[in-house]
């Protein structure tokens, strides 16, 4: 069963076409990694899934609900999809606890106690229970990103979107975030991850998508993507040789 279905999506900024006829899907429990060179439209594509970026053509169906339909209640739909950003985007004026509970209370209407319980449960899971009363600015990048993941999980999402969650981190902090994501994948969370961490892709991805200049150039099983390099497109091979050399 498809959790996220992207159907012939195209998007323009004025005359410039950012997305060209993108089609793919993410099944329930599947982990799909999206990679590609800078400016290829990865962030734009993943943000169309929860309508942070509007698109002009095609449609996206999330758990049976059309994102493109103007009648869709977008806040309600977004509340069911977790998203993790490159720059964490914790709310800096709120404590870690408040970051975890504010949307549960204001959006889902949970009681303060319930929101606290849920928030603390996930904060504990990402190993940061001791930081509950601090503010985001007092945490390291890796810690902030783990809180951001906990914030998304506390909403009980049906799927999680990640946009380069580790690329703003110092190298020594990348693994603490990847570990949380690997664990999440093993628990069966549906995940769409923009990342260049090929180790992560090898370990938990079911499929790998390669984008170039706004189009989906490759979309195949992980074994095929990494195992049969010769069958990949010229651009994908170039890209892979560049990032695997690192």
């Amino acid at each position, binding site marked *: 069963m498809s959790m996220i279905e992207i159907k012939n999506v195209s998007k323009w900024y004025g005359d410039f076409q950012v997305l060209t006829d993108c089609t793919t899907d993410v099944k329930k429990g599947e982990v799909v990694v999206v990679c590609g060179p800078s400016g290829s439209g990865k962030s734009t594509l993943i943000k169309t899934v929860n309508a942070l970026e509007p698109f002009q053509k095609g449609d996206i169906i999330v758990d049976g609900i059309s994102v493109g339909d103007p009648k869709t209640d977008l806040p309600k739909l977004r509340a069911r999809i977790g998203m993790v950003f490159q720059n964490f985007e914790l709310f800096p004026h709120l404590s870690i606890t408040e970051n975890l509970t504010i949307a549960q209370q204001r959006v889902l209407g949970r009681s303060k106690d319930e929101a606290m319980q849920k928030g603390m449960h996930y904060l504990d899971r990402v190993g940061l229970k001791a930081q509950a009363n601090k503010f985001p600015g007092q945490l390291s990048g890796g810690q902030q990103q783990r809180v951001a993941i906990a914030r*998304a999980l506390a909403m009980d999402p049906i799927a999680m979107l990640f946009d380069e969650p580790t690329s703003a981190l110092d190298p020594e902090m990348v693994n603490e975030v990847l570990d949380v994501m690997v664990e999440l994948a093993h628990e069966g969370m549906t995940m769409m991850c923009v990342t260049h961490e090929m180790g992560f892709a090898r370990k938990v991805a079911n499929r790998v998508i390669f984008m170039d200049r706004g189009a989906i150039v490759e979309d195949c099983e992980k074994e095929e993507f990494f195992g049969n390099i010769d069958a990949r497109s010229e651009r994908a091979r170039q890209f892979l040789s560049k990032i695997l050399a690192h």
Partner: protein
Amino acid sequence: MDFSQIIPSLPSLWDGMKLTLQLLLLAVAGGIALGTVLALARMSNSALLSGFAKAYVNYFRSIPLLLVITWFYLAVPMILNWITGEFVAVGAFTSCLVAFVMFEAAYYCEIVRAGIQSISKGQINAAYAVGMTYSQAMRLIILPQAFRKMTPLLLQQTIILFQDTSLVYAVGLIDFLNAARARGDIMGQSHEFLIFAGAVYFVISFGASSLVKRLQKRLAV
């Protein structure tokens, strides 16, 4: 120079100062509230709303405050009369307050707009991503951060407004300056009373400005 009559006059000067401060506080609260609404309108996707807000700001920033005060003194009772169909007595205080709120909102609007624009796009995206509506994202996430950043500018504008409140003499309100002038005339010490009033305005404005500068440094860290 003979300042001897100032001490016995302090109670009536204080009455004037109370009016000044009352007007100031209400005008600041109203001006920031209206200014925030205008800023949101100015930044909205609706061409109509943003065009209206832009025209409003440009208009009120292009006319003298004194004109607005006198005009509202005449216009507010007339407009209320026209709406309600009966004669409503509006005091000079109320009409001045309306004038200040509407005039200052144009300035506060630009400050609030700059404050909101200084918050990164990622924050509004993060607020939307957890399911917040536009109004929740603004109230809970964007505005609290923006107001924190623009506190020094808002205070600076408020100090200017504090000095501008003296213009209410035009419609006969007894604010601090007007009280000092009237009292000085009665006591035959006009010069001394005006010098004293000037000193009071200076101490309050300069003191507040220095506080703002210190606050600015603290917020910048």
